[in-house]
């Protein structure tokens, strides 16, 4: 029934439009071409000016209104060391493009108004001006050069890989449909070898457990932790299709490609607690987190850094969320110490253990078969 009404409405509106069209044609004929052109010029000229004013005002007002929600503004200063550089580059570009945007729009719509058709006027026959062409070629070229130099400087610094002698943690993020497997290197600080052919239900990462570097590797739970101020190299890869490792507050983004490890190096400089205390100063973040529970915790209190996927990977692309908590070095150490080694807790001594039957130096002295450990991550106190 609704469908029928909608169809009838569409037909009715079409008829109305056609009639409007015919009426305007008739009145145009009655008025005569000159009068029609005079009216058209006047109306559209004024609307051009009106549009210009409303447009520019809307742009500035809306930008101001939403400012604090955008990354790099308000409480959303970058939580990583390199992030500030990227944000300031954005702002420099914004200033240049903003000036051009305003000036060209004023010129466009003001000239459209000023030089609108009027009777007994003639257009000036100006066909070109080579000097002007040189000026407005050179000036953009200079501005672009400035942006390029600044941009490539930043790019080559941010994207540079770590020096092996540097002090950093390497973790691995493996994207799959539709979640992330995050692997930490354990006390030896090195991620163990992987072979995708070894992937199985019990070995989602495809770790090669004949490599001793894998024996202490940790597969973390829903929340991952990082210590503030310490450089992190994220090794990024995917199992099935393209994904993308995206930490918005840290300005970290890199595709995860099956068969080709990629990386991103960054240093978190704000703990989750510090970021929350910034948010606390803004009214929109003091609203209740859950609209149905007005007395419950506020948005700033429950705010978490989040990992998202930023490359279309299938129908669950929008649901690959992971929490990241940045904490002090002490809190991180306490958490990390309690994270069990995946090999020891899940594989050692079982049928798919390639080292079954051998004695390894990681085995506890008192038993060949270790007792099953509690594998839930323990949260450090905040």
């Amino acid at each position, binding site marked *: 029934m*609704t*469908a029928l009404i909608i169809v009838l409405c569409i037909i009715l509106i079409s008829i109305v*439009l*056609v009639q409007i*069209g015919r009426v*305007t044609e008739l009145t145009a004929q009655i008025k005569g071409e000159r009068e029609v052109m005079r009216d*058209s010029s006047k109306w559209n*000229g004024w609307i*051009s000016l009106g549009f210009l004013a409303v447009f520019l005002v809307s*742009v500035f007002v809306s930008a101001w209104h*939403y400012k604090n*929600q955008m*990354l790099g503004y308000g409480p959303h200063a970058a939580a990583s060391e390199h992030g500030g550089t*990227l944000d300031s*580059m*954005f702002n420099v570009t914004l200033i240049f*493009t903003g000036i*051009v945007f305003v000036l*060209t*729009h004023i*010129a466009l719509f003001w*000239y459209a108004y000023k*030089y*609108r058709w009027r009777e007994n006027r003639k*257009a000036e*026959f*100006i*066909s*070109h*001006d080579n000097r*002007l062409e040189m000026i407005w070629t050179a000036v*953009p070229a200079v501005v*672009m050069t400035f*942006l*390029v130099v600044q941009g*490539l400087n930043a*790019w*080559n610094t*941010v994207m540079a890989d770590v020096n092996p002698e540097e002090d950093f943690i390497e973790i691995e993020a493996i994207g799959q*449909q539709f979640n992330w497997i995050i692997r930490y290197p354990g006390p030896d600080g090195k991620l163990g070898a992987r072979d*995708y052919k070894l992937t199985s239900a019990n070995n989602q990462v495809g770790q090669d457990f004949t490599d001793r570097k894998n024996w202490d590797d940790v597969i973390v739970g829903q929340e991952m932790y990082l210590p503030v101020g310490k450089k992190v190299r994220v090794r990024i890869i995917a199992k*099935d*299709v393209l994904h993308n490792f*995206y930490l*918005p507050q840290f*300005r970290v*983004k*890199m*595709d995860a*490609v*099956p*068969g080709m490890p990629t990386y991103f190096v960054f240093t978190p400089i704000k703990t989750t607690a510090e970021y929350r205390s910034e948010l606390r100063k803004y009214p*929109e973040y003091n609203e209740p987190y859950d609209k149905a529970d007005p007395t419950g915790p506020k948005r700033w209190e*429950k705010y978490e850094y989040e990992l*998202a996927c*930023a490359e279309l990977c299938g*129908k669950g*692309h*929008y649901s690959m*969320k992971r929490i990241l908590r940045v904490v002090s070095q002490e809190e991180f150490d306490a958490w990390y110490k309690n994270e069990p080694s995946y090999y020891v807790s899940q594989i050692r001594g079982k049928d798919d253990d390639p080292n079954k039957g051998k004695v390894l130096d990681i085995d506890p002295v008192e038993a060949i078969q270790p007792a099953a450990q509690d594998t839930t991550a323990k949260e450090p106190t905040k």
Partner: protein
Amino acid sequence: MAHVITAAETLEEKITHELGYDDHFHEHHHGDKYQSNFLTTYIFSTDHKIIGRQFLITGIFWALMGAAMSIVFRLQLGFPEADMAWLQPILGKWIQVNDAGIGKLDPEFYYSLVTIHGTVLVFFVLTAGLSGTFSNILIPLQVGARDMASPLLNAFSYWFFFLASVVMFLSLFLSTGPFSGGWTAYPPLSALPQASDGSAAGMTMWIVAMALFVVSALLGGINYVTTVLNLRTKGMNLWRMPLTIWAFFITAILGVLSFPVLLSGVLLLMFDRSMGTSFYLSEIVVGGQILDRVGGSPILFQHLFWFLGHPEVYIIILPAMGIVSEVLSVHARKPIFGYRAMVLSILAIAFLSFIVWAHHMFMSGVNPFISNFFVVFTLIIAVPSAVKVFNWISTIYGSNIRFNSASLFAIGFVSMFISGGLTGIFLGNSAIDIQLHDTYFVVAHFHIVMGIAAFFGMFAGIYHWFPKMFGRFMNDTLGKVHFWGTLIGAYAIFWPMHYTGMAGVPRRYYDGGASFEAFRHFTELNQFITVAAIVVFFLQVVFVINFFYSIFSGRKLTVKNPWGANTLEWTTPIHAGHGNWPGNIPTVQRWSYDYGKGGEEFIPQYVPLKEGEHDHGH
């Protein structure tokens, strides 16, 4: 109303009779069976004017389809809690109705909608519907040719496009759904049916449709290039060609050079899908299944795709730019400012468009070193684009511009191109792209510059050349309503996306980011965007009604040259037949931009130079 023969037309006839080019066309074609029945006149025609209109109407069909799809997914994004059960009669099983009777859009189909929306609008509407229409209609007429160099290949160009349309349309009805991996079709998602239902039969049909489309584009492109180079009338040297022809000509060269690379990319994808090859696949475990493909790289596809993909966006925008230059100049009664600079800009943009493709791949895992080159060239390409904007604004300066639907859309194009082009400067700088890649900032950029600016160029062309195509005018009041409404509405849709993008909201999220703390606070903004999209959609319906009604009942032309334009297409009879000119082909004595010269409002190209007069076309 009858055709009124003006003094200008009598003069034109005299000049063409004396100075025109006599190729004995009608002697050769006396008594031929060309276009002798309904089928060969209106359906399988080889006449470029009919073919152009066929491209236009098919393009309009797909524009409505693509826009309707966007309304459905915008409803999902703006009003995720709303009941979509009313769409079930059209979308069938893709709306899942729960026990409470609330219908929700299937996420897989959401991604199909987004994919097909992008595919059909970029290729079928803004390439075939824009280049295909206007290159076909205008090239022979404006260069002074009887038809294209090969009218038969030209007809095939349309019919391959039609076939591609049929295949794509049929893919919408598959039970596993149409292709859903994004119009960019990146493998492994697009190579592995196990990874997504939409990568099953839907992907195969998408590839077939695209292969047919590439054939169509190449057949058309070869014709356009050959016709412009070989069939110009006497006196029409390259520097006297209108900017429309320059634009269509260079666009065709871009297409001929880049479309085959897309074809190769999708063919290799087909091999990976069906023949066990590993061009794009390596070390994959999908759905618990370990695949034995090794050695390939998904990055290879991205290179092959974007090697076309970037020139493609210039293939879309250059014809629109050419049309805007022409429309502005004619209605401003003033030459296009800086004709030579405009031509050189088109050439610069075309050349540079081939060496910037990997700016779509900054975050794809390619060695960051090579991104340096792509940043440099991408930001360089901003320079000729800026030059063009300044030249258009200078065309309006000092003019006496007539406002009608065509010229208003041309002015609107300049506004949109400024807005959309400037955000490209952010995205082209790789360091800034780290943050903005795959967010709504990108969506805002390409929609403003393609989805609006290129469309505005297309509308300007349709309103301006509708009298040439159909011998009637479109209704100008409805056209102005269409313009102002769409200008305001389109900005209302896409401007806010800059903000969500700057907040980091990723694109291609079914729920718009609602499950992320960082992205979930744009509920009202998303509603605003959706409402604006619905309004703008209905304004396009106004346009379509105006278009089809005017074909049959629009105000008839009474003179051949209603706009007082200089170019040759206005010298044919109002309803030109096969061969365009009944007698001699006019020859060209001057460039096409003598508007307001020496006090004359316009001087057509066929009018000889006066004693001591210089031709500005040099």
